[in-house]
Every structure is written in C-alpha cells, then in structure tokens.
C-alpha cells in the first residue's frame, strides 16, 4: 500500500489540566472514507481542530503526504490540501451561495489590487468561469439549489445549508475532506438524501480521502470502509464497522458499564 495521505502520530491536545486528545495515532489512505466515532466529548472535533491548525497540539505530529503540518497555521494546512466542514454550520449567512463557495475557492482567486480594481474585464472572465464551476458543483448535489446560486444563504433550509457547506469544502479541490457531523440538526430522510448526494459527488473524485465524524451509525456503516473509535481522547478500537460495532470496549463506551 502507498503512504497514507494523512498521518497523525502521538497527537496530544491539552486544555489546562484536561487532556482532550491523548497520543492519537491515525492514518488515512488515499481514496478512503474513514469513520470517526465515539461518545460526546471523546475528542473527535478536537482532532479535526488540531489537524486544521485551530488548536496547537501539545505533542505529536501531523503529516499530509510528505509535508509536516504539525502546529502549522490554518492557512498552511489549507494549502496542504485539507478542507473541512463544521459541526455547527459556519457559513457566511448574509452572503450569497456563490460568495460562500468562493470563500472555499479563495486560494485560486486572483487577489491583487490591480487585478480586482483595474482589470475588470479579466475579473469578469474569471467570475464567469467560477459561476459555471459553482453551478456545476451545486447541481451534482441538488438541481434546485443550483438555481439559487445568488440567494442569500440565510434564506436556505438546513439541508441546503449543509450542501453549501460541503460544496464550499469541495470547490477548492482538496485531497482530504474532514466532515464534522454532517447529519447534525437534520431528519433521517434529509440525512440519507445528503449522504446519497455526497457519495455521488465522491464517485467523480476517486482520489479524495474523507474522514467522517458521525453519530448516525447507519450512515457510518454505509459510507465508510474503516472506523476509529475514540473515548476520553484515546483510540480504543479501529477496523471495519462490523468489527468495531461488535467490540466489547466500544459497547461499554457508548452504553456504559453494566
């Protein structure tokens, strides 16, 4: 097997006396969907925040491909090819769907003063291209949503906001996508619909690797090839969903000791 696209070794995050993540080893292969599960407060989102540079790890390393991104800024991590969504939607609500997607595509935009203020016809061309790309990407998720490209995000229902958030992460063509509980706040049917969309979009991007945090076990079973289970900041189990679900320790972590 080739080298993993993402490799965390001994990753530790502390908040004062609390160890939120304790010496976590985790590897993600290219093209893989890895489920990250565990009870509330077990350190799943902390792991995402540590990888994306929002938290500085107290110990351990994170590598993206050959590149060491331990303690790097969020901007550097983004440049290394990692994009993410947030558990509680962090879209720019007053802005249009298109503007939100362009936040995700920010690294590819021409950001010079001259390019933006004086060369308006060049900007127009770049803008038109981006409208086409954004429209196409949204349409793979939902055709009606693609028609609302210039509506404010605040006018969209929850499921469409989730779609926009995932598209915002995908439009920058990342190598690795970190999805933090995409089903949060949605009904079962909406969740299933969103997952169908995501898997359909993914089939066009075979090399994209995904880590999925989820409490919806049906989703994990359906979408992931492999799972890692966290409890109190430590990995207690790793393997295909069926094996993990049968594991005694995992059952205890979720249901408590008898």
């Amino acid at each position, binding site marked *: 097997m080739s080298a993993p696209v993402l490799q965390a070794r001994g990753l530790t995050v502390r908040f004062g006396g609390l160890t939120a993540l304790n010496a976590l080893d985790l590897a993600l292969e290219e093209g893989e969907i890895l489920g990250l599960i565990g009870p509330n407060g077990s350190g799943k989102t902390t792991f995402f925040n540590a990888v994306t540079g*929002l938290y500085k790890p107290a110990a351990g390393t994170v590598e993206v491909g050959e590149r060491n991104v331990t303690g790097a800024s969020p901007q550097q991590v983004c440049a290394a090819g990692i*994009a993410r969504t947030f558990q509680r939607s962090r879209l720019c609500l007053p*802005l*249009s769907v298109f*503007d939100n997607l362009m*936040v995700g595509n*920010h690294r590819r935009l021409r*950001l010079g003063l001259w390019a*933006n203020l004086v060369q*308006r016809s060049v900007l127009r061309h770049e803008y038109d291209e981006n409208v086409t790309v954004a429209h196409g990407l949204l349409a793979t998720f939902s055709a009606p949503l693609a028609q609302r490209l210039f509506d404010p995000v605040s006018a969209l229902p929850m499921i469409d906001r989730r779609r926009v958030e995932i598209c915002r992460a995908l439009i920058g063509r990342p190598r690795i996508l970190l999805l933090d509980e995409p089903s949060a706040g949605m009904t079962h049917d909406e969740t299933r619909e969103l997952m169908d969309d995501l898997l359909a979009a993914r089939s066009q991007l075979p090399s994209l690797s995904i880590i999925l945090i989820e409490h919806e076990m049906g989703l994990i079973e359906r979408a992931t090839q492999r799972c890692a289970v966290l409890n109190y900041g430590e990995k207690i189990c790793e393997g295909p969903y069926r094996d993990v679900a049968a594991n005694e320790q995992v059952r205890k972590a979720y249901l408590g000791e008898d």
Partner: protein
Amino acid sequence: MGERAKTGLSIAAAVIAGGAFAILFLELEAQWAVAVLAAATVAGLAAFRFSGANARIDRAAARHPRAAFALALATVAVVAAVLHEAHFALLMLATVALYTTTCFGLTLQFGHAGIVNFAGAAFFGIGCYATAILTTHTAIPHLLVIPLAGLVAALIGSILILPILRTRGHYAALITIAFGILFKTFLEVNDALGGPQGLKVPALDLFGWSFNDPIRIGEEFEGSFYLNYVILSVALAALAWVIVNRVEKSWLGLSFDAVRLDETAASVFGIDIARWKILAFSLGNLLAGMAGAVYAMMTGFIAPTSFTFGDSLILVSIVILGGLGNLLGVIPAALLLLVLPEKLQMIQEYRFLLYAVLVIAILLFRPHGLLPRRLRAYFPAKDAA
C-alpha cells in the same frame, strides 16, 4: 405607458427631487420653511416608496450604474451652480462631500472588514496636519500634497493596526478610541504643531491659480471661492466611490466579508486575516487623510478641537445610519447629520437633543439603516428587456 418610459420618468423624478431637496435644504434659512421642508420630505419619501418609484429607481440604477453615477454628478453640478453665491451653503456642501469620502473609507473598515474605527476624525486630522506641514515647509505641488497626506494617515494607521490585529470586537474598538484621544492630546501639547491654537493652512494653489480666488466665467457669472472646493471635494468623493465600489464588487470585498463574518472559517479556507484587515484599514485611512487634506486647505485653519472623539462618533453614526456597508446610504446620512443641526437653530440648544432622538428613532425602526446593504452583484445584471 411602456416600461422603459416609466423607468426613465422615475429616474428623472428622483434626480429632480434630489436636486431640489438639496438646494432647499442647504439654502433655506427661515425656520418655518425648514419645518415645512421637513414635513414635505417625510411625505415625499412615503409617496416614493408606495408608488413603487423606489424599487424602479433601484432596479434602473443597478442595471445602468454608469448612467446613474453620471446623473448623480450632474445633479450635484446643478445644485452647486444654483448656489454659486451662497458661501455658507457651498461650505456645507463641500463638508458633506469630504465627510462622505471619509465615511466611504470607514465603510470599508467597519462595514466590510469589521474593524470598528472610533478614530476616524483623528485620521482626518492627520491628513489636515500633514497638509499644513507639507504646504508650509515644502514646495511640493498642492495637488500632490492631497494623496501624500492620505499616505501619511495610512502609514500612521499601519502602526495602530498592530495592536488591533491582536484583539477582537470591543477591545479593538477601545484601542481606536484611545488612539483618537491620544491624538488630540498630542496635538494640544505639541508646540511644533501649534498647540491648542492650531495651524494656518495656505489655500490650494493649482499651478499658480489660488483656490481662494472666486471663479469667473465671462462678465455675468462670478461664483464664491467655495465653489472651487465643492468641485474638488465632490471629485474626491466620486473617486472614493469608484474605488470602494470596485473593491466591494470584487474578490477583495468578498475577502473582507469573509474576515468580518467568521475569522475561524475564513482562516480554515486559507484566507489571511491580517492581510485583509491591514488592507481595509489602510485604504480607509488613506481616504480619510485625503479628505482631511482638502478640508484643511478649504478652511485655512486647523486646531485640535476639530478632531475630537465626538467628531469620530459622528462619522461612525453616519456609516451606521446610512446602512452599515452600503455606500449609497452614506450620502443622505451625511447630509442629514451634518446639515440638520445647522438648520434647526430655532430650537437652539435643544437641537442636539432632537437630532439624537432622530438618530435613535431611525435605528430603532430601521435597524439596518436608511438603505440596508444588499447582496454583492459583482457586475451589473445584463438587461433582460
């Protein structure tokens, strides 16, 4: 009547109404007349809104931004020509244009990038003092002094941005308040800058022609020398409009919005927070400094009392009252906040009370300001008709 004719008619109505209103507002002295005008304004605004003229004008301006811009400038030209002998009205008009320029800068900072700047008057003042020094002690052409004064304001601002970048929200606002107060105190104790007495500033000299000479065209037309400054101030405001408008309708404006709305999400997508805050802050202060330069040359005299915290508050009020982030709203808000206290002489000291009540009322009933900001349209919509 065809759709096109209706559109044309509503635009003509808007231009004529706006121009006539500005002339009356600036010219009227009699207090009963001001009161009648105020009542007529309220009625007129309501009529515009309910007849659908507002929406029509809005759409037409969005489709033909260049035509709307040219019409607006032409209206100002007509107003200035009608008032060509009224010194005080022209002084007010030029002051409104310069405050508008400054508030365009503040809109970039506060409305777009989310940096509350309570030292707007200080940066305006830096432009004034830089002009006083550059015009008295150097031989730099006066027209060049204006952008230089703006650069000085931007440079001093780039020192202030360092602590602002390390703080957020209210704390960043406190830093700017402290700076504004510090600036005024510094001027008062500094003898080289004239101390509390202030400094004299020579009139703008354009290739040997002094702006303090009245404009003469033929035998009949002789305009107040303030007319010169009105032309210059409006030209500066128009330039500021073009710059800030283009900034907003580009990836730059998008970056500012992303930084203001969610720094965490923005940084995860590779947006360099510091870079955009520095750019917005510097550009805004550049505009404030340039407006200050023209103001100093126009009034011929500057003193620390013109650049107090209270003046900064007026600038921020204009930006909020107009509709945070909306450039167009700044213009009526500046006109209202600067001219109204002058016009309400009849109720004497109470006029500031009334004026404060008005600001509170507008924010209570229209929390997003007179003209709320709209979604970004990078380019004018292609005309469907």
